[in-house]
């Protein structure tokens, strides 16, 4: 399974990477099949924000640990709910890692951001405008949590607890950068991003209602 020790943990054989991809895509597919009334517009909306966020992450890649995906997962989780939030996190990770770098860590990044989306769905899922105060608190917590979660990918048989703590301690400056960047994204982009999704989602729901009525009448 493991080919060598890499910068983010073990380097895997291509078969194992394929298996990880298959599992992640499968989970995203299952999450998106329910509820079953997905309209084309909703598919288009989700695809658009996935593409936009993945492109933004790739564009920001030269800036170390500046991760717009963390803020996006919180907002998408809050606006589109748990299932679509998690699916969004998985798809953005897979898509952007195709360009940036793919491997064992993809599993940790996808699951990490999926949990961030779940947090957004649980604690920010309110009608109307986003609660910026909550969003900022969650930005701090989510960024730190995500970094430490992904750090688990470096653990191997020879890694001691002290090694891991030292690794986390060495990465604190990068964690701080992630936190500040996510807060900045939250302040500058989150309201517009949230409104865009909300408006589009409400249009989708209206269109869906008409469609359902048509079906009932038919």
């Amino acid at each position, binding site marked *: 399974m493991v*080919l060598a020790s890499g910068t983010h943990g073990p380097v895997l054989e291509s078969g194992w990477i394929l298996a990880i991809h298959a599992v992640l895509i499968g989970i995203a597919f299952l999450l998106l099949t329910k509820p079953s009334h997905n309209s084309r517009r909703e598919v288009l909306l989700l695809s658009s924000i996935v593409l936009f966020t993945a492109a933004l992450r790739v564009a920001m890649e030269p800036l170390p640990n500046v991760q717009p995906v963390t803020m996006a997962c919180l907002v998408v989780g809050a606006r589109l709910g748990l299932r679509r939030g998690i699916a969004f996190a998985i798809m953005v990770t897979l898509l952007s890692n195709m360009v940036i770098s793919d491997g064992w860590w993809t599993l940790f990044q996808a699951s990490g951001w999926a949990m961030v989306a779940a947090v957004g769905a649980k604690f920010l899922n309110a009608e109307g405008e986003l609660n910026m105060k909550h969003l900022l608190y969650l930005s701090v917590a989510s960024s730190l949590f995500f970094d430490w979660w992904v750090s688990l990918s470096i653990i191997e048989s020879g890694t001691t607890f002290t090694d891991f703590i030292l690794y986390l301690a060495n990465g604190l400056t990068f964690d701080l950068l992630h936190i500040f960047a996510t807060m900045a994204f939250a302040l500058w982009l989150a309201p517009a991003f949230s409104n865009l999704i909300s408006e589009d989602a409400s249009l989708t729901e209206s269109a869906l209602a008409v469609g359902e009525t048509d079906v009932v009448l038919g």
Partner: protein
Amino acid sequence: MRRVLILLAVLCFANLASAQDPANETWQRDLDNGYISTAPLLTDDLVIVRTSGTWDGSGSPHIFAFDYSGELVWQVENPHSLHHDLSPLLLVEQGQGCGGTWQDLLIVAWADGKIQALDVITGLEKWSAQTEIITWGITGSLAIDSDLVVVPTRQGLSTYCLADGALKQRVELEQLGWRNGVTVSGEAYLLGNEEGILNTVYRNGTVISESIGDGKIRHAPMLTNSGILIHLQTASASEVFIAGELFLAAGPSPALPAIYNDRVYLATSEEFIFLDCTLQCESIGSIPFHSNGEIAIQIIDDEQWKVWAPQNNPEGGWGIFTSTDSWYLLQTSIDDYATAAPGFSSDGSYALGNDKGILMFYNNQQIPQVISQSDEELDYTFIITTLVLLISILASAPAFVFHFHERVLKILLPGVVIFMAFNITMISTAWSGFLTEQIEQEGDWDDSWPDEWKGTQVVVFELPEGEVVFGGMSGHKTVENLTDDAAFRLGILIEKESFAIGDWVKSIDGYEGAGWEFRIDGERGLLAINEAQVGSDSVIRWFPA
């Protein structure tokens, strides 16, 4: 008629341009044969350079001779040479003396103790001799004494007739030498060694030994008007002695000093030092610079000269110094660590070689590709991002005064993010250094190692065939620099991979296995090798994952 004249003029110009002598073109050759650690030599029509070999079985040390158009004329290989081929090449003009006459010769000293005299034009061997091997052979610079070549061997000194290689004098010494170059004075030969002792070997065989200090003498002693100058390498720094007296303290890993017109030039990992020894030596200034290799003088005319020093860090290039307040860095597009001085020809052409094993030739018409930097380089990224940060702080101040907390963050955070993102290497390195200082190290000392390694930097390679260790090093700041130095001295090839977060070792001495990891003083390395900091007495241990 006017059009015809213009056409003729254009044709003439084109013809002139196409008729340019190809031998006057700039060129470069990737010798793919290890480091170039000694200055290339330029004769009237040849560029001669030596390489260290790769030591992974794919290439042994070579001498290459190219003509001025870059065509290979001849090459000589020494498949039996050991590591550390650092002895500078020596050109000797034709002459006569003991043993008869000789044509122009190239004298080559090898790390397997062999001395070869080669015909400069053909590369064919004229004569050879063998000196002792104690782990390795000759690594210091040779000297000419009339009709003799003076050879500082691993544990002694030998002189040979230039004409036929007949041994003229042999003196055994007590101490071992490394890069122990020899200097010819009026009545004796001077050479140092790894125990900080200066040996004066008289032509009648008498030896007088004088302890200079607790350190290593790794250059040919220098004759000045104030006495013999020694730049002693100590455990974590260096000391300059003149006439046996301490003259000044300097940074670690001293370079091979140079002297011209009673001006002495010294360098370390921290500075380039100017001394004026016209009457009594006095220090006239220093400039922050990192050079540990050869320093060379380029003579422009009787009154003007330039001093070149290779920059031994990843940025590479050659510092060119004319005075204590005038210098610049010559850089090429293929720079790497550099320890070899340039080679100059009488017509102003010059050749450069670096640790990538790339030889570059510039004719006298060529302006170097990139000349940058005078005095200290300004870090524009840091300056601009700091300005952005300050502006964001100032802009957020009114919001702070009126308690608009969200607005404060909205204005301040982008500035903080920009500052941190563009300076993260500096910030994380400083943080890592701080953490390292706070953590009490377990240490990784092995009692079987020599006591003189204590307090110095040591590298251990746990290779499949056994442990290989090199100690006694100093002045290195990162795991990468320290590992490279140890590997070079041990003749071990390190293959690296570069990632966005830094460099990592892919294979050591050809062994890739499941990857390589390192420990610093017993603690597992957690950063890339070019980021991980080491102390002045750190032990780096490389082991298979």
